[in-house]
């Protein structure tokens, strides 16, 4: 795999601390599992102006404890459905972290980068190298453990388990 293929990112949109899952995807839409359908309602409580900006956003940049609240997986999948490739935050709520990996959404903890970025800035991450580039600067973060990289590369937990079982059966 060439280095450029590991790079994800683009235009940033910033949110604050403790953004909970009711803000990311309100509970009334939870009967859907279609990421594209869910994306229409992503961040609805933040208003239409915010949602309009979200359409051209590749990177959500958040403060601490992003994704706290309910355990809903749709908080991660609605972002994928809306074209978001990466979430960079000072820290993540535990269930959001797990759900992001399981659904194949790349997330990075980098308090320094969060401080440096403004709305509309470009930001790119390389998960294998553990680097994040924005505003001409490079920040590093600890690369994901090997096991989690495998899950992300497969596109999430379910495709990963399916692949693994297939490999074992063909042995």
């Amino acid at each position, binding site marked *: 795999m060439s280095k450029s293929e590991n790079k994800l990112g683009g235009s940033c949109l910033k949110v604050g601390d*403790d953004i909970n899952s009711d803000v990311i995807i309100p509970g*009334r839409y*939870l009967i859907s*599992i279609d990421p594209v359908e869910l994306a229409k309602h992503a961040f609805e409580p933040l208003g239409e102006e915010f949602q309009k900006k979200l359409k051209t956003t590749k990177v959500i940049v958040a403060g601490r*404890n992003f994704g706290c609240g309910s355990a809903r997986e749709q908080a991660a999948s609605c972002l994928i459905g809306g074209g978001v490739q990466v979430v960079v935050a000072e820290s993540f709520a535990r269930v959001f972290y797990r759900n992001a990996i399981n659904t194949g959404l790349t997330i990075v903890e980098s308090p320094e980068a969060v401080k440096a970025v403004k709305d509309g800035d470009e930001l790119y991450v390389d998960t294998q190298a553990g680097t994040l580039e924005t505003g001409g600067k490079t920040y590093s973060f600890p690369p994901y453990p090997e096991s989690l990289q495998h899950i992300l590369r497969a596109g999430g937990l*379910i495709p990963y388990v399916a692949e693994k079982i297939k490999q074992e059966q063909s042995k």
Partner: protein
Amino acid sequence: MTLIEAILARASGRETVKPGDVVVANVDRMIMHDLSGYVTSKVFDEKVGLPIANPDRIVMVFDHLFSPPSETEAEVLQADRAWARKHGINLLDCGNGNIHNAVVHNGFIGPGMVVVGSDSHTPVHGAMGAFAVALGNDSHAGTVLPYSKAWFKVPETIRIDLHGTLQPGTTPRDVALWLVSQIGEGGAIYKAIELGGPLVEEMSLFDRWLLTLITVDLGAKCGYVDPDEKVFKFAREHNAMQAWDEMEVSPVSERKYEKRLEFDVSDLAPQVACSPTVGNVKTVDKVAGTTIQYAELGGHAGGRIEDLRVAAEVFKGKRVHPEVCLNIVPSSRVAFAQALEEGIVAQLHEAGAMWFPPSTGSNQAVNMGAMAAGDAMISTHSRNFPSRNGSIDAAMYLASSHTVSASAIAGCITDIREVL
């Protein structure tokens, strides 16, 4: 090893585990409610398509919907029922109570178990001495349903010791809310929180429950209390001791903690968590006098028989304020039956309260509990994020059943200590 480390060692077939280890553990119980269950079943059927390994370990509880308000919701329950029957899992249909209370009272949770659930408050079951963690649908559909397994990173543990004697009017619920203000939302991300000390030891199982319930709002992976005779007695009566093997749990003095916190809560005043977050906790005097249109005893942290008894006591000779709707939502059929027997149902009915079926009540306003802009509710619920109960401009205050009852009588948020 702590209780959690010992459970994870047992469940992953290892002699020992330590914080940071990633283990694949056998799951003893998986719980879902009607809405998360609907999503998990769709993901499982569409993306996995295998049989369920141990359907007897899986429980679905209809608690958000207790009587479908429209065709769409009726279709959700219809699909859930068909899926539950197809796979032979346990189903507790409408009217069985709040998911967590219903599974405990039906004997599905016991000490030593690995419990997973798609409701974020699943860690409440740590009060039973279980390792109880919230997972998402893909973990459930991808590994728990087909293989009865899930991956876990063994968490670091924070020990919290609680000391002192609570003042009249201050309850374990107030202690729980106060802890969120002390440790902070997200103040214990990924950690296990071990609760102990003299005050916790004195508490009943279902008062400890209020403490483990809020550990998720601290960001924790799980919270727990080492099970004692009170827990074992309940578990034996509910035939839920099967996971309690001879586990190698070390004495507290030999356990390794990331940190230890000690609190004396003898001077603690009643607490209220104010919109917009569970961490926005104030002493009741700071918000006393705020007008409310709704009050509710129900949800994960209310509607227990203990809460209904408190309401009966506070309401003696008093009525619900004419401009307040007081919703009472028993958390289980057991709680409702007990309230009937003790005359509490009739008393509170005559005082002007509305009884709802055992369910999760106004949680997320799925079946009840929506508010208009400018409305306010005080409740025993667990979350108060804006737009969770109707308008984004409605306010939800979280408090104890004492404070909720006193406020429903006065028509505004009230310091219970002034009416005791």
